[in-house]
């Protein structure tokens, strides 16, 4: 795991800095550092997700799918799709006449997802694309739905990523952003902090032999914009009828926006 060395990296210019967890790093380095984190956790990603959230992440993802309004024949982009939890279901919903693109910047995650979905028999209407959310390699007005679940906080330039998503979305299409957010209650926030900073890294050390990556996870969640800020960012790049729905006391929020 190279996050320790990465954290000590000295940024070259104030303007080129960005956050990597609680550390400020050079923008150009963040992509590689996040990539290192996910290369490290890819193999144990699903197990750790179940352990860390006590399986509740499956319900958050189900809620996202229920809110997608996706139908047979439509084109879906599952961005930062990781190990393909959402893509699997979308593939079955859009059917043979539709198309799902599972995109992730991280090759290891993409390969784990591809192997998992292929083993589940999900083939034919799904493509795997290694892509940076800030510069999506797709034509304008291409997708009916874009989802990004637990991925946006790892993106270096979130506004650029949202603008890129807006560009490739069809008029009438919708964006769903499922991401950790800010708990709505102070008491829950304290419990959540204790869990994130003390239990998570130990769990990561025990199961994935990697405490640093899970420390980064906790830090990156705290650095991610809160509900209102993210909604405003979506509006700023052109999304309309934006809204968000808090899940599990605001630990996670689902943001929704449309392109008209």
């Amino acid at each position, binding site marked *: 795991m190279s996050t320790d060395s990465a954290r000590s990296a000295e940024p070259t210019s104030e303007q080129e800095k960005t956050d990597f967890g609680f550390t400020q790093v050079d923008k150009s380095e963040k992509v590689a550092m996040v990539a290192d984190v996910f290369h490290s956790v890819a193999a144990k990603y699903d197990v750790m997700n179940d352990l860390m959230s006590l399986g509740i992440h499956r*319900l958050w993802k189900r809620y996202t*799918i229920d809110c997608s309004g996706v139908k*047979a024949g439509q084109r879906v982009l599952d961005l930062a799709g990781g190990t393909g939890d959402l893509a699997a279901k979308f593939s079955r*919903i859009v*059917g*043979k006449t539709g198309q799902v693109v599972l995109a992730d910047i991280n090759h290891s995650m993409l390969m784990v997802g591809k192997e998992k979905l292929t083993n589940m*028999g999900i083939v034919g209407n799904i493509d795997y694309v290694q892509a940076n959310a800030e510069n999506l390699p797709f034509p304008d007005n291409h997708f009916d739905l874009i989802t990004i679940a637990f991925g946006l906080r790892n993106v270096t330039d979130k506004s650029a990523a949202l603008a890129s998503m807006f560009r490739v979305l069809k008029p009438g299409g919708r964006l769903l952003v499922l991401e950790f957010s800010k708990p709505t209650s102070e008491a829950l926030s304290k419990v959540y902090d204790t869990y994130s900073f003390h239990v998570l890294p130990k769990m990561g050390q025990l199961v994935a032999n990697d405490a640093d990556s899970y420390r980064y996870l906790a830090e990156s969640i705290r650095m991610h914009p809160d509900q209102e800020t993210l909604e405003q960012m979506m509006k700023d790049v052109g999304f309309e009828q934006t809204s968000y729905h808090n*899940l*599990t006391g605001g630990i996670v929020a689902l943001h929704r926006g449309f392109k008209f």
Partner: protein
Amino acid sequence: MPAYQALTGLIETAINQALEISLNAAELLAPLDAKRCIVFLQEFDLTLAFQFSGQRVDVLSLPAYDEDALDALADDEAFISVSLFALPELKKTSQLTKLIKQNKLDFYGDLAVVQKFSQLLSDIEFDFEETLSAYIGDAGAYTLIKQSKLLKAHAKQQHELLMNMLKDAALEEKPIAVRPIMVANFVDEVRQLKTDTERLEARINMIIERRNAK
């Protein structure tokens, strides 16, 4: 915690587990491939979508369907609004039209989807012995299933016996109960007695008057 998603997760897992151990799921699911049956449960104000794909069913919890959403139903979709109490009747394909006529079921979209869904619920068969044998061995599974069948047959026999007893009791004991004609006869007899008493009273009065006149 998203409660509806927990519920649909449980339903979906149960359905897919059941389909896995079914003997004829493939045959019943084939005509439903790529179809969607949307069920609105009236008592819970809950809209569930059953999305069929190959040998799997995905269950989604959807927002309420308004007129626009119903108009936008695709060719391979069906929407039914049904009471929870009428759900068991959906298993009888032949009852669908009757349910619609009785206003127990509102229907939009492709009727064939509902019919095939109904057929899936009614015709599905399971091979419990094969499934159990993986956990407790062939002999154990055979014994357990045989005992279960014996128990089921015994329960059925007892049920039939009880029903026959109740039926006999109803038929045999019925004459003890007062029938309407007997009540009418009793009323007639009381009326007759009253008339006779009045006549007797009149005669006694006449005799007393005659005696006083002397």
